[in-house]
């Protein structure tokens, strides 16, 4: 059986720095996988390599049996990989509804012709209605329907995090990548977020998440990948990873 996401011998150099070196990993359909590692381990770089933001220096990435390395981010996104960003990137001068609609229209494009004449024929109207439906559904999933008309910049930080997730969900992705979703959230908010991610996973979405918050990752992920200095040093269940000697060494340093 082929894996949903297959990363083979992937590497990336920035000048003299090996950000990611020879990483091989996979994610299966329906999994909830965590990606952890000390600062500078290459977690975000690996995400950027998967989503097409950063070109690979070596190796291949395949999604649903198709090689996606070398494709532009928007192409990768339309194939069903959706992501959020570490440093929270919403569209500040657009309403919450319009923010989320970008995810929907990205996956289900409306062209200039559709915008001009879409109201005149059935296909165009159906397309608009479907985009609107997906947008509302995503807003409902994160509980932001009541602020749909609000400007994104006016939302409090926690709600903007959910807005970013809603925008990713509006694309109806097959695979969702969350880059440090709990960063900047307090304990209660993090617990709520954990429950929310579990619920998404329960609905059949394949998720990969990068996180610093160990309790969050250990609590909800079925499998955990550990990166250190750009290399994969462990891959297993939370319990196995917790007791792995290489992982302890990477996080705590060697006692010499």
């Amino acid at each position, binding site marked *: 059986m082929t894996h949903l996401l297959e990363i083979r011998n992937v590497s990336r150099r*920035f*000048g003299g720095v090996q950000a990611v070196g020879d990483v091989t990993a996979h994610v299966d359909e329906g999994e909830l996988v965590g990606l952890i590692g000390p600062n500078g381990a290459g977690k975000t770089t690996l995400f950027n390599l998967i*989503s097409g*933001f*950063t*070109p690979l220096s070596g190796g291949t990435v395949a999604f649903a049996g198709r090689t996606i390395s070398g494709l*532009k*981010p*928007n192409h990768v*996104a*339309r194939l069903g990989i*959706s*992501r959020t*960003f570490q440093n929270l*990137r919403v*569209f*500040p*001068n*657009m*309403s919450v*509804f*319009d923010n989320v*609609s*970008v*995810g*929907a*229209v*990205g*996956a289900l*494009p*409306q*062209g*200039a012709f*559709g*915008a*001009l004449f*879409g*109201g005149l024929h059935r296909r165009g109207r159906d397309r*608009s*209605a479907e*985009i*609107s*439906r997906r947008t*509302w559904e995503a807003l409902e999933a994160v509980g932001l329907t009541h602020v*749909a*008309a609000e400007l994104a910049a006016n939302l409090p930080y926690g709600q903007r995090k959910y807005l970013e997730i809603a*925008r*990713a969900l509006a*694309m109806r992705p097959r695979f969702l990548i969350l880059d440090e979703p709990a960063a900047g959230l307090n304990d209660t908010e993090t617990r709520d977020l954990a429950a929310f991610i579990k619920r998404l996973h329960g609905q059949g979405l394949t998720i990969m998440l990068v996180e610093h918050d160990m309790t969050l990752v250990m609590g909800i992920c079925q499998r955990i990948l550990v990166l250190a200095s750009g290399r994969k040093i462990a891959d297993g269940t939370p319990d196995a990873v917790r007791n792995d000697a290489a992982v302890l060494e990477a996080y705590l340093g060697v006692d010499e």
Partner: protein
Amino acid sequence: MNAFETMAPADGLTRRRGLLVPALILLLVFAALPALLAGFDKGYFYQIANLALIFVLLSASMHLVTGVAGLLHLGHAAFYGVGAYTAALLTSKLGLGFTVTLPLSGLVAALVAFLVALPTMRLVSIYFAVATLAIGQMLYLVMLNWVDFTKGPNGIIVSKGFELFGFSLSGRLGAYYTVAAVVTLSVVAIGRLSHSYYGNALRSIREDDQCADAMGVSTVRLKMEAFTLSAFFAGIAGSLWAHMTGYISPGDFKFSESILILAMVVVGGLGSLPGAIIGALLLILLPEGLRALGDFRNIMVGLVMFLSILLLPKGLLGEVSALRLVRRQLGAAWRNTGKGEGIGWR
């Protein structure tokens, strides 16, 4: 709040815009104003009204590319010129009438925009702005120096006024109605483009183009489309101008005109179509109204622009602060993408 009128679910947020305001505007443009103009019966007033309408269209078309898609365009007047020259040359060399030159002016301007956009669309931020400046200057210099074809600084006399399928629309009122009808239709089309999910995709590029890319928006393609479409409407405006004045010369399309159109969009508010229209009316009618001040009037206009930037960073009705947009573009120019790629490209 742009896509709300097209939303299907019947909940509290569904907002069908009232028909009252558009109806009042149509009444003003097509009944009250012509009645007023006919009452005064001075060619000068017709001229001002037509000029204002043409600049409304220019400002609205720039709204699409700069206000919505966030591309700082410094050469818009050149595409206005391409449209005007297309109309003038088709008329003087082939004897074609307005019915034919109007769509062709738009198409030729769009084609030129498409061709020059091909190599420039991957430029980001301020580099793109400089490229559009260069494109504008290039086109202007072609109009000025290709004397055999464009008659250079002497300009071209456009011998034919407005007509529709051979039916003459000349005469002051006929010309006014033609300009008003074409501008209204074009502005409605631009409104549909910017107040749609397509418009939202364009806005997302203005807000954060990398992030838009990750959402599946083909940023380069959409930028091309916005640029080309805005040139199309500028070309339409050019055709109106050529047939209205009966004489065009390169001076009508120089850099300062591009800046004037940009100022209209900024004063009205980036990202707002009503803002772009109000900005155009303000910057055309204000200098005319201030004629009594003599040479001071241009200083007054400059002051209005200066104060509006200072006191109303988002213009009258804008979505984005113009200063912030420019600052971010300058910032992006020097921000290393960290991808080992050349700065200024994406």
